[in-house]
């Protein structure tokens, strides 16, 4: 238990540092939020000065930093420069679509990743191994905008099986496949190599000599031990997804945190970028904790060691 308390204690300073780094960076890089907001529109000086005043950008940087900080400790992360809406509201609005897409991608990725991993790992250096690994390589290396557009072309435009920008569960299928393919590629490769290692262990030979069926050996005796590296990868990749899949969101015209962050950075919407980065850092830390926790479930030895240490 100590272990988790220690980890949680690191969270607050980490978030504070991330938040400050974003503030400093965005104030150093070129670009004036007021100009970026007004775009190419021929707004007069009066309009520019008024917008600057309304956003509090006429105040010195240090004063802005401290007032941001004071408000943040009260739980108020500020208002977006662009929309004047509270940044927490904006994050909340875009969070659900991102979570949906992440879970869809996760399900698809884990299913196909583990499937192809076992398919290849149980018979290394065979035809089916090569075939599975080629598929995995495609999943990792094909860019998601290409996969997304191909899926739209084949299943949306040509066959008309699924909606392209429609509503509800069906509209989640193509985007989930797009992000899931990337997921599945890494999972498949790691599951395969890990499984090959485990299947060469002594206890598997013992199990075989006891006459236990092949399926039982793979599913009950090997897979659990082989899952530690893939679960680690899963944590990292899920972390990537839950912070937004920019390109997939754009191709399928889905709202999401990736698009929100991109818009915020391009417009130098400092309060929004800060809030998003803090949120994303928190999610990463949280997912790391979950992964650590999962190790203990998969392999009780890890839990024992941790308690001893």
């Amino acid at each position, binding site marked *: 238990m100590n272990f988790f308390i220690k980890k949680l204690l690191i969270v607050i300073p980490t978030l504070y540092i991330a938040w400050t780094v974003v503030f400093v960076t965005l104030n150093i890089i070129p670009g004036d939020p007021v100009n970026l907001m007004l775009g*190419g529109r021929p707004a007069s000086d009066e309009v520019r000065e008024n917008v600057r005043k309304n956003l509090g950008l006429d105040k010195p940087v240090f004063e802005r930093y401290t007032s941001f900080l004071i408000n943040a400790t009260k739980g108020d992360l500020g208002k977006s420069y662009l*929309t004047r809406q509270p940044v927490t509201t904006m994050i909340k609005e875009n969070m659900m679509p991102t979570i949906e897409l992440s879970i869809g991608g996760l399900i698809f990725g884990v299913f196909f990743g583990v499937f192809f991993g076992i398919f290849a790992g149980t018979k290394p250096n065979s035809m089916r191994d090569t075939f599975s690994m080629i598929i995995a390589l495609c999943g990792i290396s094909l860019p998601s905008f290409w996969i997304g557009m191909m899926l739209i072309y084949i299943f949306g435009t040509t066959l008309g099986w699924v909606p392209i920008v429609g509503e509800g569960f069906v509209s989640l299928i193509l985007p989930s496949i797009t992000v899931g393919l990337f997921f599945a590629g890494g999972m498949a490769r790691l599951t395969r190599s890990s499984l090959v290692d485990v299947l060469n262990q002594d206890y598997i030979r013992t199990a075989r000599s006891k006459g236990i069926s092949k399926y039982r050996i793979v599913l009950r005796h090997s897979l659990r031990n082989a899952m530690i590296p893939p679960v680690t990868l899963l944590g990292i990749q899920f972390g990537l997804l839950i912070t937004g899949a920019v390109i997939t969101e754009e191709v399928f015209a889905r709202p999401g945190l990736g698009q929100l962050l991109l818009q915020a950075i391009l417009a130098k919407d400092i309060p929004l970028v800060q809030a998003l980065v803090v949120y994303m850092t928190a999610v990463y830390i949280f997912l790391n904790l979950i992964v650590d926790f999962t190790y203990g479930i998969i392999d009780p030895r890890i839990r024992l060691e941790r308690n001893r240490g």
Partner: protein
Amino acid sequence: MRILLKIALGITFIFSSLSFINTANALDIVFAEDRPDLRTLDPRITQSRHEEMLIVNMFDQLISADSEGNIYPGLATSWDVSSDGLEYTFSLRDDVSFHDGTKFNAAAVKATFDSIVDPETGSQGAVDILGPYKETIVIDDFTAKVVFERRYGSAITAFTETELSIVSPTALDKLGNEGFGMAPVGTGPFMFKNWEANKKVELVRNPDYNWAPEYMDGSGPSQVANLTYRLIKDTSTRVAALEAGEVDIAELVPPLDMRRFDSSGDLSTVTGTVSGLPYSAFLNTTTGVFQDVNVRKAFFHSLDRVKMTSDLFFGYAEAAFGPISSSTPSYWSGNEDYYPYNPEGAAALLDEAGWKMGSDGVREKNGEKLTVFFPCLLEPDTCVAIQGYANKVGFDVNVEVVMKARQDELIFANGYDMLVIRWVSLDPGVLIIPFHSRNIPQPGKFKFNWARYANAELDQLLEDAESAETQEVKDDLYMQIQKHIMDQAIFLAIHDQVQTVAYNPDLEGVRFANGNWQMRMYDVRKK
């Protein structure tokens, strides 16, 4: 039991026939808009033509203008201008109500305009359009007098602009400025229903709407019952969704797809030539090779704008020649006689200016190369086409595709030879912003005279045109202004901005609003 069954059948029949009637009269339209990052739907605050795409359908203005800029009564049935040009007295319709049920009247006009000039509102567009506004006087319930500080030549056009739409004062009080922008209340043919951030905005028809401007085909409520704006940024997805029938009308369709639809007839198309500044380049007159007017003229002559435009737009946009587009009022057709494609003439001008052709195909003078630094914010393919043409006569054009923040830095530091621009504007009065010498940018001060051209005579013309008393005087002054800009070769127009729209061929009544960018959806109906 049998009687019950009969009753049930009867009820089912009645309901099914009712729903049939409903669907016949209840068109659901999905419009694919290209920008997902809408910020506000408050006409008083917006500065985005993409936001106005929705706003124009939810609000009405005092004066209404069709897509050609012809003027019709809007919320005002008539208006009088005082002889000194300072007072505009509007007689208002007495049968109009806002979507929240409150009555439209002179007090609403006053509340709208007064709140636009209130700095608290944070207006980004409307406050400039309202110009030298002084006050609104409520004469009686349905008569309002708008008073300006000085003569304002663009006033009538201004009252037709989407930004000067009349908003519900009751809703403003209730929601505040920020809340109103997220749930706007106007008098227009459609009412706000729902907004899913970065995804879609849903409008429903206003069942009480009975004040459509007379240039519309229809009267009474629109035949479109539900109007959804699906925000699709990716161009190929937008076109795919249109072809799959998931959306009915899509904006900003690539010219190549427009051509495909026109030849196959699968989808109908309509193209609007946007009024305002065409896609053009400012040539920097204060630094580098463009300080010499003959070098600027040679650069103009080196470009085959007609061929370049037809290569890039397949006939869906025309080449532009003057500082304002041909669809803008007071456009001077004399612009078209200037600087035709003439590479030999360009070479002769450069020779005369002392720039001799070097062995590497780039001209030189006193060991200096004829180099042009061209930061390109909009339409990189057009920038590269310009580069190719200019290179043929010996310019070395260095194109850098930049983001807005980088362009701002370069503007502050005067670190560019040319920059591109395009604006939507309904009035030639916009020319004062990019050409008056007071609008030359300074470090930290963002302004729009990117040619950095200062000329007292041009300044005077621009100021006089702003307060011109009659249309004839105004046209004449803007003719002289355009001529001056063309003679000096400081602003290189390339092509007209176009709004390319494709839609379901079963529909008709798809029409542009004034300015030819936004779409009025009121008249859309089944053929």
